[in-house]
């Protein structure tokens, strides 16, 4: 959407002929910079929120620097800025026996996958890089590449904890991709489209009189599908209680044990970007996307952006809530939940949604 509009706008200047490669490159860069900024700002805000939320949940006050200077600002507001500066200035260490090439490439692969996945996430009616026909499927497919970066990082570090972390991560992500995809299938069965904007426009209006017509409230099966999706989504982004790939009490830091400085920051940045994407898909597929929670109330593009960001923020907050209240699962428990609980439920759900649409549709 944004790319098409920018192309038309630039072409109207008649400086370039239509479809010029240079123009396309310029437009892609212009569209890509805000995504990069979004990822960076998202990490800064989310890390601060995580510090404060974890502190309040443990009856502490969290970062509380006073005043300007190198203190962390009022209420520790500049804490994450200071952290980012520290990471930029830190020494970059590569272990002598590490596989140098893969060690350097791995953080980039992990960083690039959420970056290109965000291109298909609609923030309001118009704010979307490209409205793909296969929108939601594209995001899930691209998201599955990031685990290759994790495996590369774990293997190239030449460290047993890294290797264990990478192996656990591979097993976990491959397993949890299935309930994620199956719960999205039950949404697609209702909407009849894979396009993100198409899924959102299906959820326009009201249901049962007062409730917004979100897929969450559409029928009992899609209600359960949301929880299957969200639980598996938390597992896909390696967050507690499913953070066994980096379990700090067993594996030091899992696949990124050997990383430091900027390279480590890439892992960090992409973890928070992945939380944003999973929350974004959940908001689009189940919570009405950028639609207002009160149908027909404050639905201008500006407010739509606000509603969408609030829904994502709410879901990210719930993920943090999970992290600071649940203990970590064991490997076997993790696999049991995926294969013996979530997967059969997701399959049953697809069947249920099918029957439901047959009877009511």
């Amino acid at each position: 959407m944004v790319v098409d509009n920018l192309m038309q706008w630039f072409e109207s200047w008649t400086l370039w002929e239509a479809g010029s490669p240079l123009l396309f490159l310029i437009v892609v860069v212009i569209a890509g910079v805000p995504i990069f900024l979004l990822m960076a700002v998202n990490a800064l805000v989310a890390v601060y929120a995580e510090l404060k939320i974890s502190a309040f949940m443990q009856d502490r006050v969290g970062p509380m620097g006073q005043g300007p200077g190198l203190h962390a600002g009022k209420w520790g507001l500049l804490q994450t800025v200071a952290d980012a500066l520290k990471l930029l200035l830190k020494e970059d260490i590569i272990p002598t026996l590490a596989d140098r090439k893969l060690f350097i490439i791995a953080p980039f692969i992990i960083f690039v996958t959420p970056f290109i996945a965000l291109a298909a996430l609609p923030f309001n009616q118009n704010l979307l890089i490209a409205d793909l026909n296969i929108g939601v499927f594209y995001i899930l497919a691209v998201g599955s590449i990031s685990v290759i970066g994790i495996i590369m990082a774990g293997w190239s570090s030449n460290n047993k904890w890294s290797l264990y972390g990478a192996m656990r991560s591979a097993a976990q992500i491959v397993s949890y991709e299935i309930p994620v995809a199956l719960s999205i299938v039950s949404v697609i069965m209702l909407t009849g489209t894979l396009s993100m904007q198409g899924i959102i426009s299906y959820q326009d209006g009201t249901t049962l009189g007062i409730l917004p017509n979100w897929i969450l409230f559409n029928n009992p099966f899609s209600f359960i599908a949301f929880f299957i999706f969200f639980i598996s989504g938390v597992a896909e982004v390696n967050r507690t209680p499913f953070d066994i790939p980096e379990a700090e009490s067993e594996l030091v830091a899992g696949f990124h044990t050997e990383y430091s400085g900027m390279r480590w920051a890439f892992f960090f940045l992409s973890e928070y970007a992945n939380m944003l994407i999973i929350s974004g898909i959940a908001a689009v597929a189940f919570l009405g996307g950028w639609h207002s929670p009160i149908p027909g109330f404050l639905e201008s593009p500006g407010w739509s952006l606000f509603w969408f960001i609030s829904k994502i923020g709410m879901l990210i907050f719930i993920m943090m809530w999970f992290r600071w209240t649940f203990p970590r699962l064991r490997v076997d428990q993790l696999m049991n939940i995926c294969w013996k609980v979530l997967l059969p439920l997701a399959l049953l759900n697809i069947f249920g949604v099918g029957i439901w649409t047959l009877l009511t549709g």
Partner: protein
Amino acid sequence: MSELLFWFMTAMTIGSALIVVLHSNLFYSALALVVTLFGVAAFYVFLWADFLAGVQVFIYIGGILILILFGIMLTNKISSVNISHSKFHQGIAAVIVMGIFSILGWMILKTPWLHIVQQEPSQTVGRIGRLLMTEYLLPFEVASVLLLSALIGAAMLSRKAN
């Protein structure tokens, strides 16, 4: 633009495919296979088959390749084992490969190819779904039975003997 991209993707796919075959480190070969599969997905995009490209990335890179990497990591001494074979075996392989290459090349030149429409089709997924549920239902079901039996077989093999 698309022509430029096409040749770039072609070079990338063939180059990485060569690395898959020629590299002596198994782990590097598997990672080069990621690039090859990604390049094939890009070719699907050039043919307007967006759904197929997504499936290629989701199933082959996100599923099968990760299992291959997982398998490699479970084995010991990945980097020290030299997987290339003797000159004699390489010679036999070269003859067979050249044979297959010439047959495929001959076939490519002889086939009357369909010309791609320059316009984006209005929908791809819906039509694929409809065809799978009507015209190609039997092959589709046979494939799923095959996968199911493979799944049961894997579960049987990995079960503890009582």
